[in-house]
């Protein structure tokens, strides 16, 4: 916006329209989008899934898939016309002038080529290095993205590196030729918060020192707020708002932006604050926690055998220590209580929940549910146990947890058929429809297959299936991780309402401390298979005792403007 005629923008997109030819006819994925990126500027494009933010960047890179085409508009980059550039010209520009970082770093790297070689390929392709000097330059590039011991890592294959390391390599490849524009498409989705912080700060530092422009595409308003100079908000293929970051958070002009800011958990005081203002639900009734514990976990351990085959055992190397995914943890959940289990990937929180759910056998330790020991029944035979219907779970990926061949109604009816022994088709249908109504799933969607439903609708089907047998303990394994923030807001409220209605206990497994703060009474922080901190969520989040909890909290992107907004929000609502 601030760019003037004297200072032409690096990238200018005018009235861009992108169409996709599909079975149902033409879909307008991007509708007359205008945007400009000045030299050295970081522009954020924020929007939920289907907003056209990624398609816009693909159009700039001219990497739309075959069904898509630029229907109208102009894309100019440093005076060059990209919208009608031919393929040889584009392939020369990609990587040299415009680079891209993708969402899944592991998928973006060639799995059977050492990472150093992959950096060399780009350097040689764009004549930035000769063959004999390429290795030296590649190691230099690895050192620049702060990979420790770059000479050794040069020979590493992508599978030998962690997700964060892989993303650093991808950044090294993207920046190897010193491009003028870096497009980062959800660069940290799927990474832990502490890794996200490290990666984003690295990108910011490198682009600043080289004077590069960045186009950051993200669904996370907090992330965009912390790292961008200016933000564009997109909805359904169109730009709804375009402002500098401070202005956007201080005075969002468009109702969609306001809704988006509202549904971001950082600003909310309680779970109802996430919902749009016009959707006022009654406040939640006060929590009723029973005195006796519903679930008691004691010294729970899960070990995995160390790698090594027959040969190693024969050689007498059988003394390798088994890997302890869960290392002797103890906690309890009272009736009606919801407990958050927080930690980064690999901390053992999913293994713990699988053991409590009896999907996985514990190596040692005890799990008592309503005073009865669960570990005596092996997980393979727990399906026949009368306690099965008391313990249910909502899975992380709503899409993957639904059978692609079953309609929504069939998925919800499955526990009724197997655990309740219902046989009358009409009675089952009635129950399924009642459950669908409870989770707010429109009845006409019940006969659809999973791929015909949206993410939020699939999440509702998963929740309806989990509460079908009225379980006493429900484990929620990152139930909103794959959902847009506005959908997350609705689903979290639904979960809170269901809990109040049925008096269930929740074990809420998550990496997102902000979400846990809103939904849970108590929080357990795990690291490397052990519990590092435990306590009431308000206390743990405001006054963390453990060093690791503090680190986790400080890694959450929390732009100052957003905090101000939250304060204002609080002032208004009280």
């Amino acid at each position, binding site marked *: 916006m601030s760019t003037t005629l004297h200072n032409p923008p690096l990238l200018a997109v005018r009235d861009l329209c992108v169409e996709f030819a599909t079975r149902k006819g033409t879909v307008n994925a991007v509708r007359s989008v205008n945007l400009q990126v000045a030299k050295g500027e970081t522009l954020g494009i924020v929007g939920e899934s289907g907003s056209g933010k990624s398609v816009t960047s693909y159009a700039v890179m001219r990497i739309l898939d075959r069904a898509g085409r630029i229907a109208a508009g102009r894309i100019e980059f440093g005076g060059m016309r990209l919208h009608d550039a031919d393929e040889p010209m584009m392939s020369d520009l990609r990587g040299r002038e415009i680079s891209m970082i993708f969402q899944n770093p592991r998928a973006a790297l060639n799995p059977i080529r050492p990472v150093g070689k992959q950096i060399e390929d780009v350097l040689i392709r764009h004549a930035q290095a000769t063959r004999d000097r390429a290795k030296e330059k590649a190691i230099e590039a690895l050192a620049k993205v702060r990979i420790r011991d770059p000479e050794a890592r040069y020979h590493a294959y992508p599978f030998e590196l962690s997700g964060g390391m892989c993303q650093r390599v991808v950044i090294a490849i993207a920046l190897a030729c010193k491009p003028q524009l870096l497009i980062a498409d959800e660069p940290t989705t799927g990474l832990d918060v502490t890794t996200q912080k490290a990666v984003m700060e690295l990108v910011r530092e490198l682009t600043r020192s080289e004077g590069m422009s960045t186009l950051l595409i993200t669904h996370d308003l907090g992330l965009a707020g912390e790292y961008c100079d200016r933000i564009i908000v997109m909805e359904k293929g169109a730009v709804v708002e375009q402002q500098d970051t401070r202005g956007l958070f201080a005075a969002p002009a468009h109702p969609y932006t306001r809704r988006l800011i509202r549904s971001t958990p950082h600003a909310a005081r309680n779970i109802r604050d996430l919902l749009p203002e016009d959707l006022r639900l009654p406040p939640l009734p006060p929590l009723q926690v029973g005195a006796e514990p519903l679930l008691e976990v004691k010294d729970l351990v899960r070990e995995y055998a160390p790698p090594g085959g027959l040969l190693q055992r024969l050689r007498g190397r059988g003394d390798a220590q088994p890997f302890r995914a869960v290392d002797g943890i103890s906690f309890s959940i009272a009736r009606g209580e919801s407990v958050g289990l927080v930690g980064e990937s690999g901390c053992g929180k999913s293994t713990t929940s699988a053991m409590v759910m009896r999907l996985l056998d514990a190596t040692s330790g005890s799990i008592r549910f309503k005073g009865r020991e669960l570990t005596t029944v092996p997980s393979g035979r727990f399906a*026949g146990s009368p306690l099965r219907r008391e313990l249910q779970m909502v899975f992380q990926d709503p899409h*993957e947890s639904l059978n692609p061949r079953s309609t929504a109604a069939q*998925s919800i009816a*499955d*526990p009724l058929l197997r655990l309740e022994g219902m046989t009358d088709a009409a009675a089952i249908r009635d129950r399924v429809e009642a459950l669908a109504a*409870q989770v707010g799933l429109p009845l006409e969607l019940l006969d659809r297959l999973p791929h*015909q439903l949206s993410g939020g609708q699939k999440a509702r089907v998963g929740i309806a299936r989990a509460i079908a047998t009225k379980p006493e303990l429900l484990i929620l394994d990152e139930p909103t991780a794959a959902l847009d923030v506005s959908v997350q807001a609705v689903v979290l409220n639904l979960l809170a309402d269901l809990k109040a209605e049925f008096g269930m206990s929740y074990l809420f497994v998550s990496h997102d401390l902000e979400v846990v703060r809103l939904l849970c009474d108590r929080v357990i922080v795990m690291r490397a298979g052990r519990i590092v901190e435990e306590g009431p969520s308000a206390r743990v989040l405001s006054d963390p005792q453990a060093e690791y909890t503090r680190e986790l909290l400080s890694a959450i992107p929390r732009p100052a403007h957003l905090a101000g907004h939250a304060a204002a929000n609080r002032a208004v609502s009280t």
Partner: protein
Amino acid sequence: MTDAVYTPQLAGAKRSSAWSRGLAHFRYVMTSNPVTFLAFALLAGMIVIALFGPMLVPHDPLATISDKALKPPSAEHWFGTDQLGRDVFSRVIVATRLDLLISVSAVALSFFVGAAMGACAGYWGGWFDKLSGRLLDTIMAFPLFVLAMGIVAAAGNTIQNIVIATAIINLPFYARVARAEVSIRRHAGYVQAARLSGNSELRILIMKIMPNTLPPMMVQLSLNMGWAILNAAGLSFIGLGVRPPTAEWGIMVAEGANYIVSGEWWLALFPGAALMLAVFTFNLLGDSLRDLVDPQRRT
């Protein structure tokens, strides 16, 4: 979520439309790709001929008329006559039933046995996986046609044995596809969810995982079908299959081959063309069958 109004009309209407949606999907798959339509039209034609062919043919396929031997195609005998004066057209038509019967039953047998073996191996692993894997490797170690020849030669020259031999040599393909497809879905989210819903392990395997492995299995099925027809005809061709005077494409090609040198090309050409058309049809069918059984292709 407070709105729990039950709307029976809407639900009833939706329930009855499951069939019509299936039909609409079939129509979509048919019309979206002309090759698919051609494949299904050819298949339908072959099935009609197999069912009603013997009633429709102009001549008795086994009746020999010695003064009409080796006559070229004419208005009366469209495909000419063979060395014994039998009508080649009638014989080609009548043979469709036998050839399809052999190949369909052989492929069905190896499909079910192979799918069951592979699914158990992929789901539970362990000793059964190792044992069945080595067994299949052993079958694959032989040249497959020679193995089929050996089985038929040893067990006796009957249609039943041809079916079994063809089924055995096709077994590894199904078992391997099924094993791979099951083992990648073994830990899928919906399988875990099915466990939580109280399904037994066997039920999960049969009702939840197996149907999802159908699309790749269908491709394998139709490709193998053409192969099985060729295999059955091949066994007959070398004299190890169906015996004369039964009408069968393989024997007809074998018998006719002797006369090509002396210029009587129609004896071998027409059954050969029928064989080719059948194999062609099944190969075309592969992708369209996958499209039909894959729920993701529906919108």
